[in-house]
């Protein structure tokens, strides 16, 4: 009896898990339709005046912690403080976030109004809006922070635009670069702070140059 039951159980568990994984993973939430890469993208037209160096030339769709879909140009006109993280990350990512929070607290109230914080997931398989919400709560991130995730392809693309190296590990985690990027109001990277707990003067100076 056991012999018959067991495999059935296993299969159903596997099915449940894999279904859950599909529902939960970010890949599903972000644009899943088959890419018609050869058709011209409409938004290219709208972004005509955008600098060729702008991150907002990326046309990928992202899902936020509130399960809203957006394109990166949503953040246009703000000064963006950005980093790539994954929510299962135990040591490096919380430190990056802490460094970003330091930057946030060093800014004046007026400055903060022109700045937004963006965390980009490098783990499309395991991160989902609910995971991102949890992460935001755990780290007491306020409403000025957005956490986003997307498909594997979009993730790889942005990592390459930002120059972030990502190596998937057997245990599901990642080896990755630790970089805090500052985008100007047009999405051009104006500063990259590499590593943890480094002097933030340079980053703050870069931000303040952009404040109007």
């Amino acid at each position: 009896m056991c012999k018959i039951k067991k495999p059935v159980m296993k299969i159903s568990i596997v099915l449940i898990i894999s279904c859950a994984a599909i529902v939960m993973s970010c890949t599903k939430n972000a644009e899943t339709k088959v890419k018609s890469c050869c058709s011209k993208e409409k938004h290219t037209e709208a972004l005509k005046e955008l600098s060729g160096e702008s991150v907002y030339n990326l046309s990928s769709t992202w899902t936020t912690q509130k399960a809203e879909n957006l394109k990166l140009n949503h953040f246009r006109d703000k000064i963006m403080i950005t980093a790539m993280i994954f929510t299962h990350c135990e040591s490096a990512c919380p430190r990056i976030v802490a460094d970003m929070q330091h930057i946030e607290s060093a800014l004046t109230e007026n400055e903060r109004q022109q700045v937004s914080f963006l965390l980009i997931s490098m783990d499309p398989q395991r991160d989902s809006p609910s995971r991102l919400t949890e992460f935001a709560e755990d780290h007491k991130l306020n409403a000025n922070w957005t956490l986003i995730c997307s498909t594997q392809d979009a993730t790889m693309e942005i990592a390459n635009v930002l120059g972030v190296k990502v190596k998937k590990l057997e245990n599901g985690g990642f080896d990755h670069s630790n970089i805090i990027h500052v985008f100007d109001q047009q999405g051009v990277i104006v500063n990259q702070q590499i590593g943890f707990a480094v002097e933030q003067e340079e980053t703050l100076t870069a931000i303040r140059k952009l404040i109007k």
Partner: protein
Amino acid sequence: MKIFLLILNSLLLISVSGQVNPQPAAMVKIRGGSYIPLYSKDIQKTEVKGFEMDIYPVTNSDFLAFVKSNPEWSKSKAKSIFADSSYLKQWNSDDSFNKKIAKSPVVNISWFAAKKYCECQGKRLPETAEWELAAKASETKADASKDPAFNQWVLNWVTKPSLSTLPSVGTTYKNFFGVYDLHGLVWEWTYDFNSALTTGESRGNTSLDNTLFCGGGSFASKDINNYASFMRFAMRSSVKAKYCVANLGFRCVK
């Protein structure tokens, strides 16, 4: 479920047959196998599933056909964030180049452009593990990584400067799987080239820094006699996705 899969399948077929490329480049099957990454903590093999690989690297004329239907990827229009100023440097204009290089592998091509090209063929860039698995085949063996003559041949190529006019594709050797030019012509982009991490990163994970320094690095590597594999690792870790390099091309898989 089955019906759903069937519908999905037919949708995929439609979308693939709807692609612009009239003559998709010929591909051959590469049987699955295992690949041991150059730097891995233990003897961790990466299992690679079977896949199909383009027989030849993508040529200048192949790429011209792509640019014609995707003008945003032409030499003058490509966004600088996706391709640096050397993009398609060997071309005379947006749609012309010296006839001599028509069948030469397209180089001065960024990762973004290569990735888009493959997408438009209904294909993708190979993972590093896939590329390495296919590339360890000599003319006669699926795995010639322990064959000194083959390794020496590959090494002879990588230590020689590239010719200013690259030879046509298909002029080096045909490997065990039927793939040409994996060594001997140009370096090739891989989808996950940016997973080749060098020092100073991943401080949260101690597995990395100590395995990558000079002496320690070479002993920690799994393939210390295969110098060419170090050179490929170095190439991958030194480029950025928008770089366009005179001897770096690509091919697609699916």
